[in-house]
């Protein structure tokens, strides 16, 4: 049997531009009740009904888990993506009724940690907003290092500095301020857990250095914000449901499958949780694997695909859906 989440009927209660790229959205429950409580690092999946196209995107909850009168998310505008963030920035206004999922946490804190060391890059700051609020509420030991391109793009840097003072350090790319990663990773007490969220390049760099310096992988936690990338349209046959679908440029394969009325399980929409893993029955062409779930061998074998983020180019593709 498949798992899944319950849906929440919400209304947009506020839309706040934070800087030239990032806008914050506030949601309240339509029935006025408190929203479900959650753990820091959780995300909700937002359904965006854009005419006859529906996109589903995950966004980290930024607010404190201790106060669930509303949920807040921050969306970074991506002008070349498949349009989800543009939809949010252009079409979502206060008063709009929307549907979101219950919170799901695929990036949770390890509460055994004697210290939580957090590294954030750009919009990757969002899950740490909730996690630091949660830890601060119970006297937890954390330290946050936040890199951003410019001071103005340091979303929430002011808020964080005011709340946490010396527990947060900021690094601005345009001032050539860089994290002294090796030194940072060599001076942590035993029992520290490391969390990194930001661009893929940053995550890979941190993971590589941590491993080289002897950190066990169980102490290193990371979250990618991989959004499905647009690409050339392609056709797919769904063998079980007997349907043939076309995946548009701006649509993910998973969204196209859902638009055809088939509902594979999902949790992250970003190629990491493994829930939407789909078997390939046959293909004639090449896969564009954008996920972080399947192994290299799986990618090469052509037997599986993660429809939330991956695509295909070729003459035919038949999936077990």
């Amino acid at each position, binding site marked *: 049997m498949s798992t899944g989440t319950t849906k929440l009927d919400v209304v947009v209660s506020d839309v706040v531009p934070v800087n030239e790229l990032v806008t914050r959205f506030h949601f309240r429950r339509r029935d006025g009740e408190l929203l479900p409580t959650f753990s820091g690092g959780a995300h909700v999946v937002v359904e965006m009904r854009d005419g006859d196209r529906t996109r589903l995107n995950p966004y980290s909850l930024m607010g404190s888990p201790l106060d669930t009168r509303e949920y807040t998310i921050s969306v970074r505008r991506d002008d070349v993506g498949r349009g989800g963030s543009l939809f949010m920035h252009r079409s979502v206004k206060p008063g709009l009724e929307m549907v979101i999922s219950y919170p799901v946490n695929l990036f949770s804190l390890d509460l055994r*940690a004697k210290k939580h060391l957090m590294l954030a890059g750009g919009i990757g700051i969002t899950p740490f907003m909730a996690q630091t609020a949660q830890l601060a509420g119970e006297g937890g030991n954390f330290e946050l290092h936040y890199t951003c391109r410019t001071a103005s793009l340091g979303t929430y840097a002011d808020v964080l500095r005011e709340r946490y003072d010396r527990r947060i350090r900021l690094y601005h790319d345009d001032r050539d301020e860089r994290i002294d990663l090796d030194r940072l990773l060599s001076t942590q007490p035993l029992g520290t857990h490391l969390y990194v969220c930001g661009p893929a390049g940053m995550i890979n760099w941190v993971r590589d250095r941590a491993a080289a310096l002897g950190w066990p992988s169980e102490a290193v936690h990371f979250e990618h914000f991989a959004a499905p990338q647009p690409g050339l349209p392609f056709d797919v046959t769904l063998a079980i449901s007997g349907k043939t679908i076309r995946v548009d440029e701006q649509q993910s394969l998973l969204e196209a499958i859902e638009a055809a009325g088939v509902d594979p399980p999902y949790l992250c929409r970003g190629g990491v949780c493994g829930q939407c893993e789909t078997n390939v029955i046959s293909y004639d062409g090449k896969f564009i694997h954008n996920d972080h779930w399947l192994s290299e061998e799986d990618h090469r074998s052509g037997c599986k695909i993660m429809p939330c983020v991956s695509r295909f180019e070729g003459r035919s593709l038949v999936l077990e859906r």
Partner: protein
Amino acid sequence: MAAKSIISRPVYGTLSPQPGKHHLFIADAEGALAISDMAAKAPAGFFDGAEIDFIPGPDNKHVAALEALRPAQFHQAPSFASLLPRLKQTLGNAHMGLRLYLAGTEGLIGQAMQVALEAGIDHTSMQTEHRGSLARRMQCVHCKGITENVTTQPSTCSHCGLLLLVRDHYSRRLAAFQGVCINAEDRSEIPPMEEAFP
């Protein structure tokens, strides 16, 4: 070598050099040979950042062999209990990136692992290799007392005297196998004791 039986029974591997600059070895008796064997495969300069804590067996062998590896620090202890305060201090001062290597009897591996777990090291990151005696530490599920050096099946609890089945079910937290009264249903049944974990 310790045989694999049920999933909670720990399985030990072979020591192999891990990335990082700081390495801590804890071994007893024949476990020293696991360290020498690994040294043959370790990169040059590996032991420059290593400490070796060694509890020799009654024959006092292998000390020289370990000293010859020229680790940054070599410490010889007469027993695990005497090593314990120093070990806690070392781990208390250590940084993330320290790698742990445990070799020798199951009792030593388990007890060293217990201390390391308390200090915040994840057990899957610890290298372990079993050498030497198969004697077990056993916790009596009835009185909670731990009996050391159990070699027979069944075995008597050294605290409450019940005759216990020495199960393969193992607790990392307690560093002991579970002992359950073997003749609770019928006390007149007394199965013969046999050497099972020499």
